[in-house]
């Protein structure tokens, strides 16, 4: 009974579980991590109950592991996400999303006169901590895009 409750999406032997994803951002997480093209087994659960997030999503990936840089790209969509590395059905390590130095190609620059909104170039930002999470300083026009103005391009 206890086991059933715990594993609301099926168990994996080895791989990675990404937990505590805000339910409405599951698809962004999938795109940011490039999981659409994954060839291995994957299960996605969403609208699961969570004390922290209200409704959360969870991703379970067999035999898939991430570099810290890849995980840190989730800072805009799932800053509270927790990575669980699974070996032999057990969680052997937990990782958190950390503030990356830069974010490339996930969201738009808020400045309509910015070159990234007119030419074929991926927006690049330096990431800075802010009261309500992070703010992004465009590496091209140097303008700040704050959390409320983030527009995703995925």
């Amino acid at each position, binding site marked *: 009974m206890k086991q059933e409750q715990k594993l609301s999406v099926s168990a994996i032997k080895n791989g990675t579980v990404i937990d505590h994803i805000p339910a409405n951002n599951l698809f962004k997480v999938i795109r940011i991590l490039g999981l659409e093209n994954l060839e291995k087994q994957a299960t996605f659960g969403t609208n699961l109950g969570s004390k922290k997030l209200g409704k959360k999503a969870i991703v379970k990936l067999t035999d898939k592991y991430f570099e810290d840089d890849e995980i840190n790209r989730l800072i805009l969509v799932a800053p509270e996400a927790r990575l669980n590395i699974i070996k032999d059905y057990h969680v052997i390590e937990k990782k958190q999303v950390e503030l990356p130095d830069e974010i490339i190609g996930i969201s738009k620059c808020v*400045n309509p*006169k*910015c*070159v*990234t909104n*007119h*030419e*074929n*170039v991926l927006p690049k930002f330096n990431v800075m901590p802010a009261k309500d999470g992070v703010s992004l300083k*465009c*590496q*091209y*026009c*140097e*303008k700040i895009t704050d959390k409320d103005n983030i527009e995703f391009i995925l």
Partner: protein
Amino acid sequence: MKNKSLVSIEDYGKEGMLKILELADYFEKNPNQKILEGKVIASLFFEPSTRTRLSFESAINKLGGRIIGFSDANSSSVTKGESLKDTIITVSKYSDLIVMRHPLEGSAKFASEISDVPIINAGDGANQHPTQTLLDLYSIYKTQGTLENLNIFMVGDLKYGRTVHSLIMALSHFNPTFNFISHEKLKVPTEYKLHLDDLGIKYYEHSEFTDIISRADIIYMTRVQRERFSDPLEYEKTKNIYVLKKDMLVGTKDNLKILHPLPRVNEISEDVDDSKEAYYFTQALNGVYTRQAIIAATLGLV
């Protein structure tokens, strides 16, 4: 090659800036050095500019270089819908250096990433105009004999003026004291004030343009633009408050010099022009020496 570009004033640290000033001084003393002989410099002005373009072209001519390019986007392939990327890639095949002004912010950085030759940013929209900042610094250095510990007054549009912002950042390496004089709506943006706070640099904000200027080493005047005000009456009023008149120079310091990035509208009355404090036209000339220095340094010719 790519990292040699001058995109933002932050690309040069304190040492880099001082090196340019030293070189500018050398070119002022020896203006006709044919170090660009055999070189082709592209001058791409996607947006019209008189002073900046002409002073670059004058600098290139004095150095013996050849110029290709255009002086507004209408005479370029932009009108045929060519992307900036394609224009830059193509022109970088024809030239040894590209000087560019473009209305999009960040365009110079973008160009520096795709060009085979260095880029000098001659203004990217409201963002950066580093050669202006360097010529302002050179003018201050020349008239004061130092950049350290000066009392700098800035007057006019301190909110939108990019020359003001870049100069604040550049001077913050030299322990200045700033006095900012502007209309309530045109004050220095918070991010620059936070930067000064972090560095422990003193600054004072004033809404009145009065005899406080008696302490100034430099007064940096700027133009208040009509577009900044939704109420035309308020513009007219403001425009006429932040005006430097000749009688205000009584009792100021002997070493005081008045700078202005030009063009001027009415913010310095014309009777100031022949006073010993007026320096803005010489400042414009300094732009030629400074740009000679920047071009020479960017191409690694000195």
